[in-house]
């Protein structure tokens, strides 16, 4: 499980405005100032009556001066203390700046990655509407159910993009949190993979591709890990594989003594050795390498890699020349299968 962030603790402490003692201090300070002014005004008039002879004026003036000093001090304390306490330290200023830049990045991500599928949906929806209008006006004679279904299917196929992006952004925010704890739980890994395949089967079928998966051994058993993290990492890998495959994606699980691995292979053009060192960089995509416009955020593999390392595992790329003459690529996620994470391990340490 990833713990939630500590965003609230970084905000200014507005509670100071509501401390009753400070209000009392302000009121008292004003009262003392008023008394001081009264002393100054009354000193020439009644000072002699109160205090005999030449010394009559001066004591009241002295009292007024003392009260003025005390009143100003009280007021200064009452107004300046909250400001002093509210002023952020250099560290918290840095945190705030970091947080602003992270927030800015998220907005850009939303704008880019959620905007793209949304534009496609809107485009298809408008195309569909225009088509229906034309059919209604008799331009096409009748509504072609197949064509309508095709447009609706294309709209539906954008859903996995949205789900993955929302999930990526959620995990990224959790990874930024300094107190994210990593606790292993019993996990049925084949069931996690089944869920992912359920989601991507229609997407693959729509593009005339297929996904096959298996476990070795077939009775895979239980491992101790984090199902949400595994699901997130493998979803990113499968999403990638379905996108770049020519026709087939294979996912298989293997298990050794204290580790298990999930292999994701596709028969598309592999990642060239030139690009491999950058594949897990934040924001890197093949489009970036070709200096073209990005079609994805390049966050998926970065998050997948960061999570893998955070859970004491690894995410690597392997060459695969066994399945044909082409150099296909296999991503291999390896995680510990039953060793609980060391106490106090946090996502802050891994990002």
């Amino acid at each position, binding site marked *: 499980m990833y713990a*939630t962030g500590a965003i609230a603790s970084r905000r200014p402490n507005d509670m100071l405005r509501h401390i009753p003692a400070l209000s009392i201090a302000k009121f008292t300070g004003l009262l003392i100032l008023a008394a001081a002014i009264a002393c100054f005004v009354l000193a020439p008039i009644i000072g002699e009556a109160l205090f005999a002879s030449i010394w009559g004026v001066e004591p009241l003036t002295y009292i007024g001066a003392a009260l003025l000093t005390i009143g100003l001090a009280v007021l200064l304390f009452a107004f300046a203390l909250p400001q002093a306490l509210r002023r952020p330290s250099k560290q918290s200023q840095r945190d705030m700046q970091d947080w602003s830049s992270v927030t800015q990045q998220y907005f850009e991500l939303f704008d880019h990655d959620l905007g793209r599928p949304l534009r496609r949906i809107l485009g298809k929806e408008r195309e569909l509407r225009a088509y229906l209008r034309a059919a209604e006006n008799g331009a096409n004679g009748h509504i072609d159910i197949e064509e309508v279904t095709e447009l609706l299917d294309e709209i539906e196929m954008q859903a996995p993009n949205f*789900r993955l992006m929302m999930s990526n952004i959620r995990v990224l925010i959790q990874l930024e949190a300094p107190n994210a704890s990593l606790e292993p739980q019993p996990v049925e890994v084949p069931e996690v993979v089944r869920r992912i*395949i*359920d989601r991507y089967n*229609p997407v693959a079928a729509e593009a005339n591709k297929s996904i*096959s998966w298996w476990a070795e051994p077939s009775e895979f058993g239980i491992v101790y890990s984090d199902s949400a993290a595994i699901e997130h990492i493998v979803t990113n890998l499968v999403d990638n594989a379905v996108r770049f495959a020519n026709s087939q994606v294979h996912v298989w699980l293997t298990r050794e003594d204290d580790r298990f691995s999930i292999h994701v292979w596709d028969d598309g053009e592999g990642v060239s050795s030139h690009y491999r060192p950058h594949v897990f960089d934040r924001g890197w995509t093949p489009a970036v390498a070709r200096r073209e416009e990005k079609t994805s955020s390049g966050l998926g593999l970065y998050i997948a890699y960061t999570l893998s390392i955070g859970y004491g595992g690894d995410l690597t790329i392997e060459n695969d020349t066994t399945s044909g003459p082409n150099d296909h690529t296999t991503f291999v996620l390896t995680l510990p299968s039953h060793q609980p994470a060391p106490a106090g391990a946090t996502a802050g340490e891994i990002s």
Partner: protein
Amino acid sequence: MTESRLQRSILIVDDEWDSKVVRSVRKRLDEEGWRTNVVVPFDFIVSGDDFEAEALYAIEEDRPDGVVLDVRFGEHGSDRFKGLAILQKIVEHHPQLPVLMFTQYWKGPDREIAVRGTLKWDAQVDFIDKFASPEEVVMRLRRLMGTTPDTIRIGDRISIDNANEVVYVHDADKATPVTELHGLRFDILQELASTWYSSPGEVVPFAKLMRYTEGEDPRASIRVRIREIKVAIGKAMGVQFGAGDLIINVRDRGYRLAPPE
């Protein structure tokens, strides 16, 4: 040919019971041959407690085979996680009843806390998000309920009648039995179809298919049987299946079913 001996029923408990999302899921469940019942409030203004009472009553009354349950039952503080309270009661009183939580809180801390706080990890409970397609909901329920129906439809043209051990090829309204498929050939196809039914794309390993073989070379024996199955069904359909059609050998690890288009 009957679809099933006893029609399975699913109870849907969701405060947005008439929303397009729930309606599309319900329609898909109906297509699956499952009878769906929806908990509908009697009044316009209802709380999560009303849904809880109605849901528990419906479970006692109808004895469904599975429940699709929402988590949030309104904006009131006590209703935001009302579904988890209902889930806890269902698990307490009906521990064998599969429950699919259909929710926006499908993962993350809330889900983890909910599961850890109320359930044992192996309870018959699963979570799925509301973005999931109706097809995904059906797949998840198939696995949760864990049974294979009497008849499995493979695409539009093939069906396997498990009860009578007959494979049919459909052409319009006509269903023609494929008489060559019986004995070990039927068993192999049934094994592949059952796996495909609950988990499309999953490869049935050679080790699992070995029990349907004879002779000294089990792998060769399976290859022969698979070829015979493809030829028999292909003949009935008037097509010829290649290596990548109907039953596919995946990396020599095993076979998987791929419904013909």
